[in-house]
C-alpha cells in the first residue's frame, strides 16, 4: 500500500466507500459525563487510564494518566552494575527487548569509547536480532489493533508469525522476551547453528502472512471506516510533541535514526523509510506494514554480508573472559570477579545515545562517575510523547475511536512508564 501523496478523499473514492449520512445530534438535553477507560480495560493493551469527558458518544476532553507500570527502572539502574542493567532494559519495550538491549549497550560503549572496536559480527547480529524484534513489535501492534476492531483472524495470523520469530529468538538467547542478549562490548553468545536458513524460511512464511493480513484488512469496510481519517496527528503536532518512529513518520516526517544517524552497520544496507500523508490511524497501520517489508530487506542483506569472527570484545576490563580461562588462570579469575562484583569501570562522563526502536527514537542519557554502576541512567521512551499527544487527538472523536487510535499509537507500559 503506497500512501504517499494520497489525500483522504481520493483514498475513499478509490476504495468506493461512501460516508454514512450525518444526521446531526438529536435535539435532546445533554450534559457532559465523565468516563473512565482503564487502567484495566480489555481494549487497552497497556495499563493506562484515560479520564474522558463525553457528550453523548462524542469525547469533549481526554486526560491520559500514565505511570501504572512504573518500575523505578532509572533509580534501580543506579544500584546495579552496568551489566546487570540489561535485564532491566528487556522490560522497557517488552515486545522488542533486543532493540532495548542494543540501545543501552551502544550508549555505554560510547561512554567507554569502544564503539569502533565492537567485533563486526557482533554488530551484524545486533542488526539482525534488532530487525527481527522490530517485525515482532509491528506484528503485535497490527494484530492486536485489528483484533480490537473485531478482526480476530488477523490477530491469530500475526501472532502465529510472531511466534515463529520468538521461537527463533529463543534459540538465540534462551528466552522469548527476557532476552538479555547483548553485553557491553558485544553479545553474550554467537547465533545458533542453522540460524541463517531458519530465519530465511520464517521470513518467507511471514511474507505470506503479511499478504493474508493485507487482504483481510485493506479493503475491509469496517476496518477502513474505523481507521481512515480517525485520530489525525498533524506534522506540526508531531514535531511539537517530539514524536518519532512509525507514529511520527505517519505524519510525513521522514525521520528514522537508522537513516539519519546511522549506527552499527545500518549504513551498509539499502532500505527505504516509509512515510504517511495524512497522519491518521490508517497511515500508521500502513507505515508499520511497510516497515516490516523494509526490515525483511535489511535482514536479507545482513544475512548475505555477515562476516565470521568473535562476537565479544576480548578485553578483560570490559568483557567476561572465556570460562576455560576463568577456571584455569588467576588473571581471568580476577577479571571475572571484578567484572561481576565491582562492574565495568566506565570513565566519568555523560552520553546521550539513541537508536531506532520499534516505537521510534529510544534514547539513553547516561552519566558515569567512574564506578561500576551508572550515576544516572535516563531513558527517553519513544511512546511517551506519542501517548502524550492523545490528549489533543482524542477530543472530537467517538468513544469507539479511542480503541484503534490508542492501538495504533502502540503505547507500551513498560517503556512509557519505565
Amino acid at each position, binding site marked *: 500500500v503506497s500512501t504517499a501523496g494520497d489525500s483522504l478523499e481520493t483514498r475513499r473514492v478509490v476504495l468506493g466507500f461512501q460516508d454514512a449520512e450525518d444526521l446531526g445530534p438529536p435535539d435532546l438535553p445533554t450534559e457532559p459525563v465523565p468516563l473512565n477507560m482503564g487502567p484495566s480495560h480489555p481494549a487497552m493493551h497497556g495499563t493506562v487510564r484515560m479520564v474522558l469527558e463525553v457528550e453523548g458518544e462524542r469525547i469533549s476532553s481526554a486526560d491520559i494518566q500514565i505511570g501504572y507500570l512504573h518500575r523505578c527502572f532509572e533509580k534501580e539502574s543506579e544500584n546495579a552494575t552496568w551489566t546487570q542493567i540489561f535485564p532491566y532494559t528487556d522490560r522497557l519495550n517488552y515486545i522488542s527487548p533486543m532493540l532495548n538491549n542494543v540501545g543501552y549497550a551502544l550508549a555505554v560503549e560510547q561512554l567507554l569509547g569502544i564503539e569502533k572496536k565492537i567485533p563486526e559480527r557482533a554488530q551484524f547480529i545486533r542488526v539482525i536480532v534488532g530487525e527481527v524484534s522490530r517485525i515482532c513489535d509491528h506484528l503485535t501492534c497490527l494484530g492486536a489493533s485489528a483484533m480490537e476492531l473485531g478482526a480476530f483472524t488477523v490477530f491469530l495470523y500475526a501472532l502465529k508469525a510472531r511466534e515463529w520469530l520468538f521461537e527463533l529468538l529463543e534459540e538465540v538467547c534462551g528466552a522469548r522476551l527476557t532476552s538479555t542478549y547483548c553485553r557491553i562490548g558485544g553479545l553474550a553468545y554467537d547465533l545458533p547453528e542453522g540460524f541463517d536458513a531458519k530465519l530465511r524460511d520464517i521470513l518467507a512464511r511471514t511474507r505470506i502472512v503479511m499478504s493474508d493480513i493485507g487482504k483481510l484488512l485493506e479493503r475491509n469496510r469496517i476496518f477502513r471506516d474505523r481507521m481512515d481519517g480517525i485520530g489525525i496527528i498533524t506534522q506540526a503536532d508531531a514535531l511539537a510533541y517530539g514524536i518519532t518512529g512509525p507514529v511520527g513518520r505517519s505524519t510525513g516526517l521522514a525521520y528514522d535514526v537508522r537513516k539519519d544517524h546511522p549506527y552499527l552497520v545500518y549504513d551498509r544496507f539499502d532500505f527505504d523509510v516509509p512515510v504517511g500523508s495524512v497522519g491518521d490511524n490508517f497511515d500508521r497501520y500502513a507505515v508499520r506494514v511497510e516497515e516490516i517489508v523494509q526490515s525483511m530487506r535489511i535482514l536479507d542483506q545482513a544475512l548475505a554480508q555477515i562476516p565470521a569472527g568473535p562476537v565479544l570484545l576480548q578485553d*578483560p576490563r570490559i568483557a567476561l573472559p572465556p570460562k576455560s580461562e576463568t577456571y*584455569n588462570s*588467576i*588473571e581471568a579469575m*580476577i577479571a571475572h570477579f*571484578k567484572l561481576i*562484583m*565491582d562492574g565495568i569501570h566506565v570513565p566519568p562522563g555523560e552520553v546521550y545515545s539513541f537508536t531506532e526502536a520499534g516505537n521510534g527514537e529510544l534514547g539513553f542519557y547516561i552519566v558515569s562517575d567512574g564506578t*561500576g554502576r551508572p550515576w544516572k541512567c535516563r531513558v527517553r521512551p519513544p511512546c511517551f510523547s506519542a501517548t502524550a499527544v492523545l490528549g489533543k487527538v482524542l477530543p472530537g472523536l467517538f468513544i469507539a475511536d479511542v480503541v484503534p487510535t490508542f492501538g495504533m499509537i502502540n503505547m507500551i507500559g513498560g517503556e512509557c512508564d519505565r
Partner: protein
Amino acid sequence: MSDSGPTKLSPAQADLRGSPAPEMVTVVIDGQSHQFPKGTVLLEACNAVGAEVPFFCYHAGLSSPAVCRQCLVDVKGQPKPVPSCYTPVADKMEVATKSPRALDVRRQMLEFTLVNHPIDCPICDKAGECLLQKHYFDWDAKFARNDGIKVKKQKVVDVGPHIVLDQERCILCTRCIRVCDEVAQTHQLEMAQRGDREVLTTAPGHKLDNPYSLNTVDVCPVGALTAKDFRFAMRAWELYTMPSVCPGCATGCNIEVQHSRGQVYRLVPRVNPAVNKHWMCDEGRFTYKRAQTERLVAPLSAGMPVDWDRALDDAGRALSAVLASRPNQVGVVFNAQSTNEDLYALARLAFDHLHIGKAYIAGLDQGWHDDILVSADKNPNTAGAMAIGAGRLRSLLDLANDLKAGAVTALIVVGTRGVLGAGDATRTALPLERLQALIAIGTHRDAVVAAAHVALPLAEWTEADGTFTNRLGMVQRVRAAVPAAGDSLPGWEILSHLARKLGATMEYFEAKAVFTEARQKLPFMKEADWGRPMLPVQLRFANSRG
C-alpha cells in the same frame, strides 16, 4: 579497607611524621609541578596529587622495605625505575608515573606475582577488598601467558588464636611482620626459604598471639592472613560500613562498624593520627559481639514483657510515689558506658527537674593495659560521665552503704553494665532487693534487670547516635549502624519519655538536639562536632565512591 587506599597526606599527617616546620621542595610529577615538605616519601607525594601509583608492601603506618617492586616510577636521571615508597622527594626531581617503561615494569611485576597465586577468589575471604585483584584490574588486565604448575604451599596454617594463614596466597610483602615488629613490638612472624618457595611462618613453638595480631589481617593485601572470627562469615563487598568509636576502653580507637542486614560482622580500625593511627587491639574487635546476644528486647514490668506505654506508666507511678513522700530517698546511677547524650539527659532529669541529691557512678572494673593503645579504664566515657556529674557522683560503695542504711529506697539505673560486677565484692553485695522501686534501663538481661520493678530496653552503642569522651578529653562521634534490638530505644529518648510521666518538661526528639544543648552548657564539649548525617556505604562501591 580504609587503610589500603591511596594516602592523602594532610599537613597534620606530615607533621606527625617528624617535620614540625617543613622545608618545601618542588617536584615535577607527570609534567605538573608540586610543592611537598622535604622528606615526604615519593609514593605518598604521587598519590596525594592524583598520580596514582600502586603498591603492596608500603603502608602509611609502617616502614618501607621496598620488597614488592610494585611502586616503581621513572625518575629523570636515574638509569632504572626507582621504588617510590623508598625514595624521598628531592628538589627539582622529575617523576614520570605513567611512562611506558614504568607501566611495563609494574605490569611485569604483577604478572610475576600472579604466576604462583592460587585461583582462590571464589573461596577467598579477601576477595572484593583485595589489593592484588584491584591492581591486576587497574594496571595489568592481560590474560595469562603461563600455564605451568603452580608451586604448592600450606593452605590452612593455624598461626594464632585469631588468625589462619594461607601460604599460597601470600605475596611476601612483609607488612604483617612489620605490624608485629613496629606496632605490637614483638617479632612473631618471619619469612623462611627462598625464591618461589619462600613462605611466611612463625618460628617453631611460637604463635601469632600478640594483642594487636588482627591488624595483620587488615594490612594483608591479599587473603593470606584471615581472621577466624570473620572467616567465611560474610562476603566483604556485601557489607556496609559506618564510622564509629570502639567502646572497649577509654582510648576510643576510631573504627568502622561493618554490617549487613542489621547484623554487625566486624570492626576495623579507622585512621586517626591523634588517637589510634591505623590500628586497634584484638579485644576491641570483639566488642560488637556483646551487642548481639542476651539482649533485653522488650520493656518488663514486674518481670513480665509489656508495651512501652504500660512500662513507662508503671515506672512513673512507682517513682512518683517515692518522690512525693520521701524525695531524698531517690537515687540515680550514671554509667561510664553511656554516651554523653544519655548522661546529659539523665543529669537534666535527675538534677534540674527532680532535684535528686543522691547520684552514683557505675562502670566496668579496671583491667590490663599497655603503652600502645589499651587503657586500664575499660569504660569508653569515664571522662564524659565525670564532667557531666560535676562532682556530684559518688561510688557504688556509697550506694551499697546507702542501701543498707535505708537511705535510698528508689533507684533509677541508666546502663546496668558494671553495676553488679563479679570481680568486686562491694558490687555483688548491693542489696537491690531492699528497694521499693528499681527502674533499670539496660541493654542486657542481667541481674539488675532481673531485680528491677520496671526494666526498659536500652539501645547498644552500635544502634544509637551519640558521642564518647576518651581519656584525652576528645569528644568522638558514635553512629547508629544497625537497627536497635527489639523495642529498645536510646537512653535520652527513654529518659525523655520517663520525664513526661514524672511531670517534668524535658522533650528531646533526636540525639543531635541533646548534643547541641549539652555543647552549649558543658565546657568540655565546646569544641565537639556532631558531623554530617551519613548513609552507610556498601564496601562493594566504597573504593570509588563514598
